[in-house]
């Protein structure tokens, strides 16, 4: 099967005052229709930059230095402005993190959704609005007809995110990118929204790239997982393998920092933390970026960057430790 989205060797850099420095390096992955891939990492690890580059929406200070993004086999990075705009919102769409700021405050929800339909489907005003109401219904917006005529500030946070999802789904894209779609929401609403996205994704057969820092979200939604650290992949495997058998010490550290239910009663422990902080991206050493914080780092880790290789069938990691495994 041809993957819906294939990213290979993507490098993104930020143009700083002292020249360019990489924020995403050698990123590669592919997603099949109906599949969900999660990109996990701390803030500043390059996951949002990866997401934005997939839509060619990087801020002016950043740019794709090299690499390839293929959407259904077509090279997205090589497309001219027109064609790229035709793809955006139609073939590939994005759910943003903070629906309050990501929606235009002076246009109604319905106007904002139907705008996308009119752009890509050549629909009339009324037809597009009807489609917008349908989309709102699809995301289980209560009273969609009325909500479509309201402005973002008149909706609750959860409803705004539903509207955001409806907006992304308006033209039935084959690929959906969700950048921390539940971070801005109440915990009680988070599960609903995640469930909704997964459900729609399965039903519409979309490929999904979910960006998150929350391992709980990963466990619930992902098929495959990519763990990023300092702009690079450090581990990639299926979601079961990740939780059963994490290889990279950073992943192990992340797991240790998550509380488990019932654990406290059996054997109380402090939640583990990872000592140190994420290194500055403009100041990376030639070795493994995680080495200064790694409990098992050897001198080699500081000297040479470990390659990202397959340690077990379907399980990749960038760590010298597991080379013989």
């Amino acid at each position, binding site marked *: 099967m041809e993957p819906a989205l294939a990213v290979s060797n993507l490098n993104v850099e930020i143009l700083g005052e002292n020249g360019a420095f990489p924020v995403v390096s050698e990123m590669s992955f592919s997603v099949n229709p109906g599949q969900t891939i999660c990109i996990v990492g701390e803030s500043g690890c390059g996951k949002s930059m990866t997401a934005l580059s997939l839509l060619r929406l990087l801020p002016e200070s950043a740019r794709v230095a090299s690499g390839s993004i293929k959407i259904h086999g077509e090279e997205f990075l090589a497309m001219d402005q027109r064609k790229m*705009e*035709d793809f955006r919102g139609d073939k590939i769409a994005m759910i943003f993190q903070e629906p309050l*700021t*990501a929606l*235009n405050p*002076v246009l109604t929800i319905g106007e904002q959704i139907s705008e996308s339909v009119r*752009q890509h489907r050549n629909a009339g005003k009324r037809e597009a609005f009807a489609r917008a109401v349908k989309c709102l219904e699809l995301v289980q917006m209560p009273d969609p007809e009325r909500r479509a005529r309201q402005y973002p*500030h008149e909706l609750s946070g959860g409803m705004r995110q539903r509207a955001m999802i409806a*907006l992304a789904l308006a033209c039935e894209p084959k690929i959906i990118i969700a950048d921390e779609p539940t971070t801005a929401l109440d915990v009680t609403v988070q599960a609903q929204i995640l469930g909704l996205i997964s459900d729609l994704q399965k039903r519409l057969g979309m490929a999904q790239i979910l960006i998150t820092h929350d391992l709980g979200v990963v466990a619930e939604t992902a098929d495959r997982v990519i763990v990023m650290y300092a702009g690079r992949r450090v581990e990639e495997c299926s979601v079961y393998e990740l939780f059963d058998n994490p290889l990279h010490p950073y992943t192990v550290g992340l797991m240790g920092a998550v509380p488990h239910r019932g654990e406290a009663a059996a054997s109380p422990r402090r939640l583990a933390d990872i000592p140190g902080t994420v290194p500055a991206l403009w100041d990376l050493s030639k070795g493994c970026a995680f080495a200064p914080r790694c409990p098992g780092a050897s001198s080699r880790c500081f000297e040479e960057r470990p390659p990202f290789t397959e340690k077990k069938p379907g399980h990749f990691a960038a760590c010298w430790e597991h080379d013989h495994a």
Partner: protein
Amino acid sequence: MIAYIARRLLLLIPMALGMVVVTFGLLLLIPGDPASVLLGQEASPDAINNLRNTLGLNDPWYIRLGVYFMHLLQGDMGRSIFQNQAVSEIIVGRLGATIELAIVALIFACLIGITLGVIAATRQGSLIDTISMVFAQLGVSMPVYWLGLLLMLLFAVTLGWLPAIGRGTPLLQATAAALTGQPHVLLDSFAHILLPALALAANSAAIISRLVRASMLEVLREDFVRTAYAKGLRRQRVIIRHAFRNALLPVLSVIGLRFGALLGGAVLTETIFAWPGLGQLTITAISQRDLPLIQGIVLTFAIIFALVNLVVDLLYAAVDPRIRLG
């Protein structure tokens, strides 16, 4: 909404009273005496004193203020000392010309300012951005009487394209004439208003363009602009429909304030271009110390300004759905 408008209109009353008191106080403080202006330098002190008695100028200030208020409450702004005509009649006869000039200037200021601001913002750092900001700097720094004279020199004296002074047929009547087959009347009116309106608009256009540029630059960085691009919308549509509408909000209130500035600027512009409006009348009234006339003009300007601000607030609510008037 209607309750809101009614409340705002009621608030005009205390504002107008305050305005009258302040103007009255200022006029007490400035030297000069209408009676001596009226009678000329040769007049005897007795004659001046007699005239002052007739005009009521020898009464104590609180009686004069009280009498003025009493008349004002009956809708009477008094009589001009020099023109021997009711102040309200004089003002009504001149008001149209000033409002016409201010509105045309405001339209120029908005058209020029918004266009330059949007272009500069969407091409930040380009040559066109630099040029329009240099223009804005010039516009802010050049006083209206200087720019007015330059324009007059170039377009009226040197090139001879446009009339230097005076007013054509009022625009409303001229439009009516044009509709009944006399387009040259309208053209003549335009030719007359072009220079004074441009001179008057320059300062406001400059301020508006800088504001629009800053506001656009800020809005273009907003998340919802990125969302609009993510939908696949064309750049032009994103800029006009998504960015511009939001960028307009802070600009709108300033445009209202600029209208006040335009009325003030009209005083100088009208004098330079011999535009028969209230501004020109103001200068005459002040130099003659025609107290009732000055009072009337200031009061009129204040009420117009307050009404314009009310309109701006209503527009604000129309553009931004988050604003509820109440």
